[in-house]
């Protein structure tokens, strides 16, 4: 990795430069919230955003995507190519950068998902430092820092960005499109100060000690029933979660019924039919069992395979859940036995 300083005023140069080679996607305002959207004008980019409604996963694993097109008559695939335009995701916070690595474990792994892979390989990531909001708790998982998984990372140190450059492409792009200078000792000191201030700014301090064991041990706890009573079973938490990857697959025929497409769409383990099988059997019929499964899988199921918890503390689910259920509360309930 190497480092450069970029004057804030010059950042639009970089964005404009990237736009000549890539589709640039960054945070823009939607009402009083933010979303990641293609950027036409660098001025639209809201680098002061707290978090977005949907995480960046939609740029790799869209809410709905055609896996293949087929012909009914002979049951043949006519096309399963993935179109993945060269793209830059600009302004990702550390939690989101980390979330993509958790997704990678799933979509690469034993069988490689060609759709996810094509987009992942064609997308550069430009990270951006942030300020914790009242829903953030990435500090609990160590996902408040991104050490890899980006091409360029911009840390805001006042009138300049302290840019960490991870990849060859990142280095070339910085060289090509924006004026930079070498870092000095003073710059690294400013960087350290920023980091310390950031860490000190968290309101949430979640005790995650022995959480995987705790959640396994408390499988029969009444807290799950209490949470199940509140849960709206709407699946909003899963949709907004940068680390939720479950999907459904269905076929859709064109009106003439001769050709069609196999489509995958985001799904949620909070939906009642998620674990239903034929003959009326449903392995997770109750809301309580489903909400329990969501946490069980995130805190222990995934961890049992990849040694990481499947949550980056981005707080999106806390914002999305109208019933007021969120990991901070659930972890607290696991520890105290009381749902607040």
């Amino acid at each position: 990795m190497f480092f450069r300083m970029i004057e804030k005023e010059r950042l639009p140069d970089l964005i404009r430069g990237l736009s000549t080679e890539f589709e640039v996607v960054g945070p823009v305002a939607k009402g009083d919230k933010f979303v990641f959207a293609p950027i036409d004008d660098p001025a639209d980019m809201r680098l002061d955003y707290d978090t977005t409604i949907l995480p960046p996963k939609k740029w790799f694993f869209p809410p709905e995507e055609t896996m293949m097109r087929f012909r009914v008559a002979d049951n043949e695939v006519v096309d399963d190519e993935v179109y993945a335009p060269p793209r830059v995701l600009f302004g990702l916070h550390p939690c989101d950068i980390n979330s993509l690595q958790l997704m990678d474990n799933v979509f690469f792994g034993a069988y490689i998902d060609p759709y996810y892979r094509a987009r992942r390989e064609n997308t550069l990531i430009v990270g951006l430092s942030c300020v914790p909001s009242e829903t953030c708790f990435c500090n609990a998982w160590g996902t408040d820092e991104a050490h890899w998984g980006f091409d360029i990372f911009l840390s805001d140190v006042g009138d300049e960005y302290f840019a960490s450059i991870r990849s060859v492409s990142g280095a070339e792009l910085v060289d090509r499109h924006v004026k930079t200078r070498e870092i000095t000792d003073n710059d690294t000191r400013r960087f350290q100060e920023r980091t310390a201030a950031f860490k000190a700014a968290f309101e949430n301090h979640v005790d995650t000690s022995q959480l995987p064991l705790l959640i396994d041990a408390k499988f029969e706890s009444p807290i799950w029933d209490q949470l199940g009573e509140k849960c709206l079973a709407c699946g909003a938490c899963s949709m907004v979660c940068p680390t939720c990857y479950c999907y459904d697959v269905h076929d859709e025929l064109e009106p003439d019924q001769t050709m069609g497409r196999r489509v995958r769409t985001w799904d949620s383990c909070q939906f009642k039919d998620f674990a239903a099988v034929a003959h009326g059997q449903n392995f997770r019929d109750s809301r309580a069992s489903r909400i329990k499964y969501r946490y069980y899988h995130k805190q222990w199921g995934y961890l049992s395979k990849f040694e990481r918890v499947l949550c980056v503390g981005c707080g999106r689910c806390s914002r999305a859940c109208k019933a007021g259920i969120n990991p901070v509360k659930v972890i607290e309930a696991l520890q105290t036995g009381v749902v607040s």
Partner: protein
Amino acid sequence: MAPRVVVLSLASDFGCQVQITNTEDHLLTILGLIELSYWQLASSGHMPDEYDVAIVEGAVTTDEHAHLLRDVRGKAAVVIAIGACATIGGIPALAGSGSLADRYATVYGDGVIVPAVRRAPAPVDSVIHVDYHVPGCPIDQSEFLRVLSRVLLGLVDHTPDMTMCGSCKIAENVCFFDSGVGCLGLVTRAGCGAKCPSLGRPCTGCRGIAPDANVVSALEVFERAGGGADALRSALDVYNTASEVHV
């Protein structure tokens, strides 16, 4: 052999039938897959004695409607209910609360006698078994085409059972509750892609209460941030008067 299809309407505004004609790009293709035996809105001709598929729009508001439906059920292998009126009672059912005589008086003046055949408005499946449902007020063309495709393939009805908020998130809408406005998406059956919230308007519940909805918890949410529990109850009346809500 192409299935013989009839299109019928009970108490409705014909909007869902209009939506079928609004599949312009595909209308002729669809008509090529079926044998259209009766469609009063679009074609002259009489209701035939034999047919395979009956598409029914509208709520049941008279005994004649009920008789017609029983007759249809006896003849058709497949019955498809389209639209809020047919699937949940919809807006016609809003007239189901209170006294019919008063409503006659309001509309026609005092002294008008309620015809004996009138009944409280109700969805089609309150009278006969319905094989496929296309909810919504009006129906969405592409959903109708999907259901029709399932009918032609002999697949089972597959109306989504979850509520709207998941798809609303996918549409990246700012939730109405965040600004203290109630939205029925919390309890309404998904499948429209959260059409109304995406257009800046809270969901009005035209697809009916989702089987998986947690109405009790939704009431609390309305109490906290959506204009009170009564706002939920009153909003639900618009389309869902004929539905039993377990609160």
